[in-house]
Each structure stands twice: as C-alpha cells, then as structure tokens.
C-alpha cells in the first residue's frame, strides 16, 4: 500500500510542476494575442487605434490583472475542468477545440503506434530466435527508414503515392466531398483510407526501434539458464520462444511503449503538417502562432496528463508483470 501511496504522491507533485510550467512557458513568448490579431487584421483591411480596445474587451484580455492572480485563477479553473476560451477560435472554448481535434490524433497516432509496436516485437522476436535468417537481415533496412528524418520520409511517400501514382489522397482526414462525419460506413471507410498513408509513414519510421530492441533482448534471454532447462524438459520450441524467451525479453520494450503512448499527442505535429491531417498537432501550432495562452495551456495539459498517465500505468502494471520491481520496504 505504501508503495502505491508513494507513487501517487510523486505523480501529484509532478502534475503540479507541469501545470505551473504550462502556465509560465506560454507567457515567456514574445508578443501578445491582441497584437498578433491586429497585425493579421491590418494586412487585410483597415485597423483603427480604437480597434485594440474593442478586441481586448471582446477576448477578455485584461492586461491589468497581476500574474499571480492569473496563476491562482488558472489553477482553480483547471481543477474545475474549465480551460478557458480560445483566442484563435474565439468564442469556442478550449475544451471544445480539443474535443474536436484530439480524437483524430489519438486514432491515427494511437493505431499507428500500436501497429508499429506489435509488428516490431513480433518481427524482433522471430529475428532473435533465428539469428542470421532473412528476417535478421531486414533489420538494417528498417533502421534506414528510421534514420531518415521523419518529415522527409513522409514527404517522399506523399509525393510518390499521392502525387505521382495518386493511390492515396494528398491531404485531409476523410473525403470532405462525399461523406459527412458520423457513425456511418462511408465516413469510417473514408477515414481509414485517408489515414492509411500517414499511418504507414509512422509505422515505417518507428518499427525498427522496437524490432532491434526486441531482437537483442531475445538473443540475450536465449542464453539464460532457464531456457536451457526448458529445452531439457522437452518443451516445444514454440512454447520456449513465446513463454520463456519472449515474455522476459519484452519487458524493457513494454516500458518504452507506454512512454511512447504518452508522447502520441506531442509527436503528431509533423505528421499532421505534412498530411494536412485534422488533429491536435495543427491546433497546437496555430495556438503557438497566435499566442493563444488558454489553448496552449489546454493542449499542454493534455500532453502532461497523457505522459504522466502512461507512466503511472506502466509503473503500476510493471509491478504486476514483474514482481521484482516492487520495492521491498
């Protein structure tokens, strides 16, 4: 029990630190949202000196409030679940903005990350089991895909498959012309179709890491004494491979996987830029470009919570899977 209390206490402290950083960092950026809005408006039409005041009133940007009282009300609002109103998407609330974009990111990045992990682990296990096979020789090829900068790989695949061969669409999350979002098959199939190429690039660029790690762990596990024992007992090779070798070899990868899950939200910016995918990464980018404090805080909060949550989950799960990690007090 004390183990779990300690863990949870640590996460509460980490959450507070992260929330504070979320508050401070956006405010260290140069410029303020009203100036940026004015500067954008002025390129398209006239701006009067009085415009500044009217926009300040509308957005509720009260520059007189002290930074400490802003901080206090920010913390209070976060715990009430009120993330404020976005400046970029005024008058939409930050919660609504996140709710509209987060599912796309989680669906695309989540599925792609899981596919990459499963594929990498299975291939790594087989490669480690049969060293020197063709599968083992595949590893350098996949490592090459990982070593190419991700945005470059994505752009090249986009060019080949969407511009030259036109197998996949060039942009978007679904066919905006023929389908409308909802629980209907045309939309879901179109969303899957539009997500295939982005997902493919993510899988291609990340599968090598899992595969290499799993293969090497597999190799070292296979030299353990208990594998020899298992063989001596006459167990089938398949049982030894999965239940004795792979199960122990996968432990480090599993921890890495949980941490990767936490970074899904943060890691989606490049993918979404290249494929014009309607996720939270693009929203974060426009929040930063517009000095939209509330929206930035909201998205950072989502990232913070997902990273902390994933870590907590791993911590707790790990102690179940691998009893050795439980602290002996």
């Amino acid at each position, binding site marked *: 029990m004390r183990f779990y209390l300690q863990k949870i206490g640590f996460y509460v402290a980490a959450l507070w630190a992260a929330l504070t950083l979320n508050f401070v960092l956006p405010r260290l950026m140069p410029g303020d949202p009203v100036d940026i809005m004015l500067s954008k408006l002025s390129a398209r039409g006239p701006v009067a000196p009085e415009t500044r005041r009217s926009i300040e009133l509308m957005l509720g940007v009260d520059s007189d409030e002290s930074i400490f009282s802003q901080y206090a009300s920010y913390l209070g609002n976060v715990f009430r679940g009120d993330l404020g109103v976005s400046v970029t998407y*005024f008058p939409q609330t930050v919660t609504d903005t996140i709710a509209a974009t987060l599912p796309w990111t989680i669906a695309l990045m989540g599925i792609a990350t899981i596919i990459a992990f499963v594929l990498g682990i299975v291939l790594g296990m087989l490669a480690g089991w049969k060293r020197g096979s063709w599968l083992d020789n595949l590893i350098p090829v996949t490592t090459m895909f990982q070593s190419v900068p991700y945005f470059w790989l994505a752009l090249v695949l986009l060019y080949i498959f969407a511009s030259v061969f036109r197998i996949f669409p060039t942009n978007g999350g679904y066919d905006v012309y023929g389908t409308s979002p909802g629980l209907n098959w045309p939309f879901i199939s179109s969303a899957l179709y539009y997500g295939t190429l982005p997902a493919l690039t993510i899988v291609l660029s990340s599968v090598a890491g899992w595969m290499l790690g799993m293969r090497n762990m597999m190799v070292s596990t296979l030299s353990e004494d208990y594998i020899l024992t298992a063989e001596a007992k006459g167990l089938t090779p398949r049982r030894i491979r999965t239940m004795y070798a792979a199960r122990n070899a996968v432990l480090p990868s599993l921890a890495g996987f949980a941490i990767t899950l936490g970074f899904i939200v943060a890691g989606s910016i490049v993918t979404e830029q290249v494929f014009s995918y309607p996720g939270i990464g693009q929203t974060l980018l*426009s929040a930063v470009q517009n000095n939209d404090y509330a929206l930035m805080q909201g998205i950072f909060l989502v990232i913070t919570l997902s990273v902390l949550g994933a870590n907590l989950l791993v911590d707790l799960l790990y102690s179940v899977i691998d009893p050795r990690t439980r602290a002996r007090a």
Partner: protein
Amino acid sequence: MHLTTTRRRPRRTLALATALAGTVLALSACSGGGAAGGGGGNTGDGITVFNGATGNIAENWNPFTPTALQPTLGIIHEPLFYYNLASSDAPEPLLGTEFSWNEDGSQLTVTIREGVEWSDGEPFTTEDVAYNFNLRRETPEFNTSGQTPAAEAISDTQVVLTFDSPASYTQEANTLGNTPMIPQHVWEAKSDPVTDINADPVGTGPYTVGSINAQTYELEANPTYWGGEPKIPTVRYISLANADAASSALLAGEVDWMSSFFPGFEDLIASEPDLAWVNTPALTTSLFTCSNAALGCEGPQTDPAVRQAIYYAVDRDQLNNLAFEKVAELPSPTLLIPGRDDQWVSGEVEATAPSGADVAQATQILEAAGYAKGGDGIYAKGGQRVSLNVQVVSGYSDYIAAIDAMTQQLAAAGIELTSSQVAYNEWSANQQNGTFQLSMDSIGLGASTDPYFTYQPRYATESTVPVGESAGALNNARYSNPVVDAAVAAAGSTDDDAVKAEQYAIIQKEIARDMPYIPLVISSTLTEFNTSRATGWPTEDDLYAFPATWKAWDNGIVLKNLKPAN
C-alpha cells in the same frame, strides 16, 4: 495459476487497446458537428475554395468577432456598398442604393434597396440598418472604429447616420463598405451577442450555410437572393495545412479557387489546361524603419540620408528576378499603387521607384550628409558605421531571398545589412513596440483606395507611440512630421477630391524625402482558378472584384458572378 493469468494478460491488454482505438475513431466521427449534408463539391456542380484556413475550423458566423469564418462577411452578411480595392471605381450599391453627406459632413443619408429579404423570409428594412449601427455604437466590444455613427430610420427607404463630429468623410468607406448587415429580429433575441457564434446565420447574401464540421463547411445558394439565385449551387471551404498542400490540391483538381504563392507556379499552371491565374499586386513590400530617434529609435536608419541611400542602392529588377518569381511590380515612393492610384499621385515626386541600383546617387547622398567610407568599405559617421539589421519572419522564403540579394546590393553602396529570422510573434512584437532597425513587411489594404487610408495610419503622429509601447499595426516607423499631420487632417476633413489631391501632394513630397517606409516592390497577390467547373472569374482585364480568397467582402461579389462551366 499464476502462470496462466499472466499469460493471458498481455494479449487482453492489446485487444483492449485495439478496441479502444476503434472506439476513439468512432467517437471522432460523432464530434464532427453532426450536420447533415455533404455531396456535391468536387464531384457535383459546386466549387471548392481554400481561403488560407489551416487546422481546425471552429464554427463562428458572428460578424462582430475578428475570428468569424470569412464567408460571414460579404457572402452571408452583406454591407450597404461594395468598395473594390482592385479599381478606382465608385462604390457599387448592394443593400444601399444611394448615399449623400449633409453640408458639414456630420450626417450621412442612405437609401436602401427595396424588396430585399433575409434568408428566413422576413423583409430587410431601414429599422434593421439602424439597429446595426446602434448596436455597434452601444457595445464597446463591437465599436472597432470608435466612431460608429448613431442611426435613425427616417422612412421605409432612408436611414440617417449621425457622426459625433463634423467632417467625418473618412468614415464613409468603413461605415458603408465595412459594416455587415444583420437582422434585428434575430439578434434582438440573443442574450450575449459578443460570444454568440450565430449558428444558422440569417443574412441577405448570395449564400447560406449548409453544413459545417471541424474540417470543412459548405454554403448553399440562397434561392431568394435579391440579385437572383447564384448559378453555382454549392461552395465548399476546406482547410489545408500549408501552401504545399494547397498547391498539390489545386493541381489534383481538388480546389477551384485559392490564393497562394508557390514556387514555379507559372509552369505548373501552364501544364494544366483547366487552371488559370491572375495577379493583383496591391501590397507594397517595404523595409519598415524605426525612423524617429526622438521617440526612442536607435541605429543608423534614424538618419533620412541612410534611408534615401538604401532606396537608391536597391536593385529592384534583381529582387523581382531572384525573390519574387518575376511577378512583382515597381512601387511608388508615395506608397500608392501606380495605375490604380494615378489620380492621387502628384507630379513632384518620381512616379515609380528606380528599377536598377543607382549606387552613385546613394553614395552621393551619404557623402553629402557627412558620411565617409571606412577601411572596410562601409560608410561611417561620428564613429557609427552604417550597419543595419533587418528582421524577417522565418520561413517567408521570398522575403529571405530578397534580403540575401539586398545584402550584396547595399554592400556595393557601402551599407552593411545583416538579417535576423524570427518567429512571427516575435517579429510582430518587435515591429509594434519599435524594437527593430529595419523590418520586412508590406503595406496593408485600406477601407477604400483613398490614400488617406495609407497615409493616416502609417505616417500621422496620432497613430504612433514611443518605442517600448505597442503602436498596434499602425505607424510602426514612429514617423512624426507636423507638415504631414496637418495635411492628413486637412485631407480627412474634406469631401472635395481636388483639395484632397493638394494635401496628398504635400504628404508625398515629405515622405518621398523622409522615406520612413522604404518601398521595395509591389508584391504579387496571386489567385489561382480551376475553370473546368466554374467560369466568370476576375481577369486582368476585368477586375470587378479583388480576387484573393482571403479578401472578405470581395468573395461575395466573385461568387455571384460565377457560372457553371457547361
């Protein structure tokens, strides 16, 4: 026992994760807005527009908010008159048919079009017009000009707008051309007009809202539009991440109308028979200088001689070739647009800036001002070298290429130019607070083509503040000149074009000498069309509207002029 339970766990976790991901995808489907519709668009009779929107689309049709979706202005809610910034023509009547000023310029009487209906079937009346102006005037959040007139409907066809001060002629374009008309019977019922997103907007414009979600929205032709139902049944707006995505969507035939610059556009468009483009240069790319030492500016550029020297030392033809794809045009030292604004340009200043570099002239100006060339080939005076830093937004590739070229051009005239690439936010903050020496920017569009809207915000003392305070998007050069101030005030208080022209001539003489904004080129504003689904787009010969997709009011004019291609 222990073995069996843990054996299954990993598998179950994975199955759960997959199921979860599936649910999330389904959820994302629900959160999309749930509006019915779709169809049409790329495969049907409609057209698709990319207006520069990136990322998530948030529904907001509230014309008072600066974040409203762009079709709110001009397509759904129309103004009384339309001011075409691509020509010098008189304003075109829309919901208003005539207007006249009273003797002292404090009252504007507007006659409205009869027989106009809101899209919900109610008649459009003078009471609606009066309600519009009075709501703006009484709500500080909406009173963006600070000078919204009080309005009174004096009959079924006429409204009188009363300004707070006489000679309010400069408010005309903003009042008549920049004020969207909203229906009183709908807006009266809104509890908080400031944060209302005005869902299902009721307007008089050629299109109404069909469906919307976070990725796209579709407008439908308004069957009861006073000018006749538009010929293009649906118009879809999409959001794309960047200009690369836009250009590939255009080439793939997925977008019919957009305004983006992309490298090599001329050849790419020429290779597709259905695509066409038009260039409407209207924004003068200039080196903004922090010009006024008295207000806190620091650096060699506070000396007008240095600014003059830069003006002559720049080789604009080379800039056009190297950085602007040969579609930019020569600017005027008056900061007006040659051609469109010729009637306002006095003969006392050069009609356009020199196309090539005039190094002799530049060095002569510097030497006459007491500068001497140092051992490093750079001019200096009183120990201060003529070395300037120019700030530019990182990623603005044409501006960066232009700065690279200028660095060499100016070095030939003994002026050192260094550059710093910064994020948009920092660039904008520096410029507005005056913490820069030179800054690459362009002179934006005004409410009408009257030069007042170029001169008053950019050059008048009343539009600026000392360095360290934000000048908004106004006189960022911190220029202050009593002669210009007097002329701006005089031009702003008359309705007589001859008097205005006289005053503008005074301003032009001053600013051509002082050069707080050093004009480089008039940048292209490229707009690309796909003619396979719709025709009737603006052309170089018939600029009935400013064709750029980001230009609010003009979009409505363009859309109602389009016809299906076959």
